[in-house]
C-alpha cells in the first residue's frame, strides 16, 4: 500500500463519515459543523487528484467563507442559548423510494462501466496552466463571471442598506 492510498482512504473516510453525520444529526449547528469536515475531506481528495488549485479554492470559498456564513446565520437566527435547534424527518416513504432509485442507477452505472487505469506520476502543479487557460481561451467566461459576481455584490450591498 502506497502512502497516497492511505491518505486517500483517510480523506474518504472523513468525507463519508461527516456527510453521514450531517444527514443524521438532528441539530442544525452540528450539521453545519460536520459539513465543514465534508468539505475539508473533499478538498483533500481534490489534492490527490492533482487539482491543487481547486482544492485550495474549496478550502477558501467553502470552508472559510460560505460555511462560516452559514454557521453565522444559523447562530444568529435561532435561539442560540438553548441547544434544542432540531430538525425532524418528514415524507420518509417518498424519500426512501427516490434515494433507492438513485442508488440503483448509480450502482448500475458503476458496475457496467469499463474502468481503465492510467498510471501517473506525482501530480504537478496545475496553477500556471490554469492561469493561462483562464486568461487566453476562456477569457470571456472569466470576465462574465467576474461581472456577475460584482453585480451580485452590489445588489447585496444595496439590499443590506434598506
Amino acid at each position, binding site marked *: 500500500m502506497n502512502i497516497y492510498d492511505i491518505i486517500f482512504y483517510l480523506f474518504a473516510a472523513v468525507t463519508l463519515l461527516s456527510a453521514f453525520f450531517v444527514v443524521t444529526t438532528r441539530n442544525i449547528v452540528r450539521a453545519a459543523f460536520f459539513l465543514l469536515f465534508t468539505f475539508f475531506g473533499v478538498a483533500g481528495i481534490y489534492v490527490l487528484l492533482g487539482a491543487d488549485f481547486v482544492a*485550495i479554492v474549496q478550502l477558501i470559498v467553502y*470552508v472559510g467563507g460560505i460555511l462560516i456564513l452559514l454557521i453565522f446565520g444559523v447562530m444568529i437566527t435561532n435561539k442560540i442559548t438553548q441547544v434544542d435547534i432540531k430538525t425532524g424527518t418528514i415524507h420518509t416513504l417518498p424519500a426512501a423510494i427516490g434515494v433507492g432509485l438513485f442508488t440503483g442507477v448509480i450502482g448500475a452505472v458503476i458496475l457496467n462501466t469499463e474502468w481503465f487505469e492510467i498510471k501517473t506520476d506525482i501530480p504537478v502543479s496545475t496553477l500556471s496552466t490554469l492561469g493561462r487557460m483562464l486568461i487566453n481561451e476562456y477569457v470571456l467566461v472569466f470576465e462574465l463571471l467576474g461581472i456577475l459576481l460584482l453585480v451580485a455584490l452590489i445588489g447585496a450591498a444595496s439590499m443590506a442598506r434598506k
Partner: protein
Amino acid sequence: MMYDWLYNLTGSEILAMFIVSLLPLFVFILPFALFAVLMERKVSAHMQDRLGPMRTGYHGILQTIADIIKLLQKEDLVPTATDKILFNLAPLLAFIGSYAAFAAIPFSGFFIGTKIDLGIIFIVGVTGLVVAGILMAGWASNNKYSLLGAMRAAAQIISYEIPTLLIILTIIMLTGTLSLYDLSEMQTAYFWNWLILGGPAVGLQKILLIPFMIMGCLIIYTSTLAEVNRTPFDIPEAESELVSGYHTEYSGMKFAMFFLAEYANMFAVSAIVAIMFFGGYQSPFGYLGNTLGWTWLVPIEQFFWFTSKGLFFVFVQMWLRWTLPRFRVDQLMAFCWKYLIPFSFVILLLVGLIALM
C-alpha cells in the same frame, strides 16, 4: 530537501513523510511557544516597570515549562450544558488550522514541509479552519460571552482577510509566483533585494515601488495582526468586556491548545510578512557558509535569519499589545472597510501599473 533526504535516510516514504510533517511541531512550534510565552511575559514586564517571572530558573526561564506541567495536570472541566462533541473538537480544529499553515512555510532552503506552488494561498485557506474552531468553541460552550466573542472573532477574521489577500495579490502580481519558497529565493543575497525595498528589479521601477511596498507591508502587518486577534484588535477575547471570549469555558490542556494555536498563529503571520517583504530566510548580507565554503552551514544560517526575522515581528506584536488600548467592534470594522481595503485596492492598481512599465 528535507523530505528527499529523509527518504534516502530511512528508505520508507511513509516514515519520511511522517517525520517531515511532525518536524515543525516538535522542532519549531512547541519550543517557539515555550519561548514566546516567556518572551511575552518578560517584554510586558520590562515595559511596565516590573521584572516578570523571576523564581523558576535563572530569571524565570523555566516558568513556561512549569506552566505546561500545571496545565497538563489540571482537571479537564467540561461544563454540563455544553455540546460535548463540538466542545472537545474545537481546540483541536483551531490548533490544526494554525499547525497546517506551517506546512508551507520555508524555514530555510532545506527545511520546508512542502514546496507547494500555492503556498501563500494555502496558508490563507487553512486559516479558515481556525475561524471554524473559534466559532465552534463559542457555540459549544453555551455561554453568552463565548458566543459573542466567537461571533466577533469570525466577523473580524473574515473582514481582515480581504486586505491581507489584496496585498498578497499585489505581491503575486509583482513576482509572478505564489510559492513562498520561490518568493524567498527571489529576494536573495543582500537586503536591498528585499521586496520592501522594491525587490531584485533595478532602475526606476524599484524606486517607484518602495513607497507602495512600505504601505503594503504596514497594511498586511495590521490586518494579520487583526487576524490573530492581538491588541489593539483583541476584541474577541477582550478581557474587560467578554471575560476571555471564546475560550472562557476551557481549562487545562484544551485551553493550552488555544494558547498554542494563538502563538503558532502569531509566528505564522510574522513569517508571512517576513517572507513577502523581508526576504524570508535570506540573510541580509551574504552567507558565512558560502564565504568559507562550508555549504552545510548555509541552511543553518538561513534558519537563524528566518527565526530572528519572525521573532522580531512577534516582538513588535507584543510591543503593540502592551502599548495600545483596544478598538471597539464597530471601529474595528470601519477601520478595515473604510481604510485598509480601499488603500490596498489603490496599491494593487498602482503596483500593477508600475509592473507593466
